[in-house]
């Protein structure tokens, strides 16, 4: 506001003050909302990524992992966070610009949170080489940033969704709440990736695949499909899916559960490759490891359809 207004009569200065005070409160409000959002992000990163911060294999991967695979993972994470932010960001009216902003905040929180926690736990020390330190922080930042993003949406901001849900009651629920087919598959991919990142670095995944006979693997495929279908359609969890009138249940099995399982399998294969679990390994053994990792992946994919 130009200075002459403030030096004018009493009413002007009063108006000036009142505007100023409003401005201050609005700024304070935004700031507290912003801090709350960041705090939620950190809480989410902790909640979702702490198991990985405390996994020995994740630390080791930080320094021996092939840098081109790490780079690819870091790059892939960017569109993932942006789309995730657009899909589940807690402001319904979010634009792509806001989605990119939120994604970069989440990524930043992921990097910062990883660095702080790894130093706080003594995993990282100052005398380590920069190569190791950056590698460890970078790999932990992936799950932490997804956690930060999920934390912002799942741990808060529900009041915004409430209005939408109310509108959804009166409107056609198929169009109001239902996402596009691609959106549904994307959510499954995120859910699978998240659970896979938790367990893929551990040695147990490949050890299990070595211990299992092919018969165990076949059983595991059947179990994964059954659990995945059951989670979403049969167990009546909150957010579970119903079929349209007169639609046989195998329709949903073919259209959603099978593609979901294939996505979980592809994500598993990608995670195993990224973490060097497929190097020099025969194709059957890789397939078995994918089936093993596909089990948590399938559960993650199903859970994502319920939760997100």
């Amino acid at each position, binding site marked *: 506001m130009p200075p002459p207004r403030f030096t004018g009569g009493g009413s002007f200065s009063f108006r000036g003050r009142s505007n100023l005070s409003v401005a201050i409160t609005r700024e304070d409000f935004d700031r507290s909302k912003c801090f709350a959002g960041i705090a939620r992000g950190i809480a989410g990163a902790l909640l979702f990524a702490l198991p990985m911060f405390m996994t020995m294999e994740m630390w080791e991967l930080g320094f021996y992992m092939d840098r081109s695979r790490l780079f690819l993972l870091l790059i892939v994470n960017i569109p993932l966070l942006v789309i995730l932010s657009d899909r589940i960001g807690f402001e319904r009216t979010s634009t792509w610009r806001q989605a990119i902003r939120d994604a970069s905040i989440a990524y930043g929180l992921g990097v910062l949170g990883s660095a702080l926690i790894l130093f706080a736990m003594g995993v990282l020390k100052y005398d380590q080489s920069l190569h190791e330190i950056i590698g460890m922080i970078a790999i932990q930042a992936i799950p932490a940033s997804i956690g930060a993003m999920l934390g912002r949406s799942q741990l808060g901001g*529900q009041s915004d*969704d*409430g209005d939408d*849900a*109310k509108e*959804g*009651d009166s409107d056609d*629920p*198929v169009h109001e*709440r*239902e996402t596009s*087919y691609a959106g549904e*598959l994307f959510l499954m991919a995120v859910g699978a990736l998240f659970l896979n990142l938790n367990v893929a670095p551990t*040695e147990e995944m*490949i*050890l299990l695949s*070595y*211990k299992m*006979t*092919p*018969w165990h*693997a*076949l059983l595991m*495929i059947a179990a994964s*499909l059954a659990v995945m279908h059951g989670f979403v359609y049969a167990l009546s969890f*909150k*957010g*579970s*899916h*119903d*079929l*349209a*009138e*007169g*639609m046989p249940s195998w*329709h*949903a099995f*073919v*259209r*959603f559960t*099978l*593609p979901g*399982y*294939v996505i979980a*399998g592809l994500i598993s294969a990608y995670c195993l490759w990224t973490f060097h679990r497929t190097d*020099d*390994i*025969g*194709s*059957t*053994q890789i*397939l*078995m490891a994918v*089936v093993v990792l596909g089990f948590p992946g399938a559960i993650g994919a199903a859970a994502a*359809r319920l939760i997100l």
Partner: protein
Amino acid sequence: MTRIFNDKNVEAGEPHWIEWATGVVSAVIVLGVIAWIGKDALVDRDSSPNLVGVVLQTEKRGGGFQVLFEIRNDSSATASQVTVQGEIREQGSVLENVETVLDYVPGHSKARGGLIFQQDPAGKTLTVRASSFDEP
């Protein structure tokens, strides 16, 4: 969360053909995986690993002569804690013996490692072989 709201999702009754196409492709992939693993379940069942050592290359490094090797497992059974013995012999007598342990050599796969000798294996007999293993 205690707030209750109606967020039942209903799958569309008349889906786009893309959904069916994706479903069919996925079914083919899943059946393919099942067939692949099923084939191994029926025909390819070895009870013990078959480990063969191969020397890949020898390099002069700061710590000595570094021999990179590969242990191949031609059986479908996986070996773990595979001890690898490397020996340099000259005219029947062992000049140097070095060993290492590989975590896993999975079935129909290979695992790599390195042995570091003090003497140059050039012109002498160099053997790398697996000497023991565990079941995973």
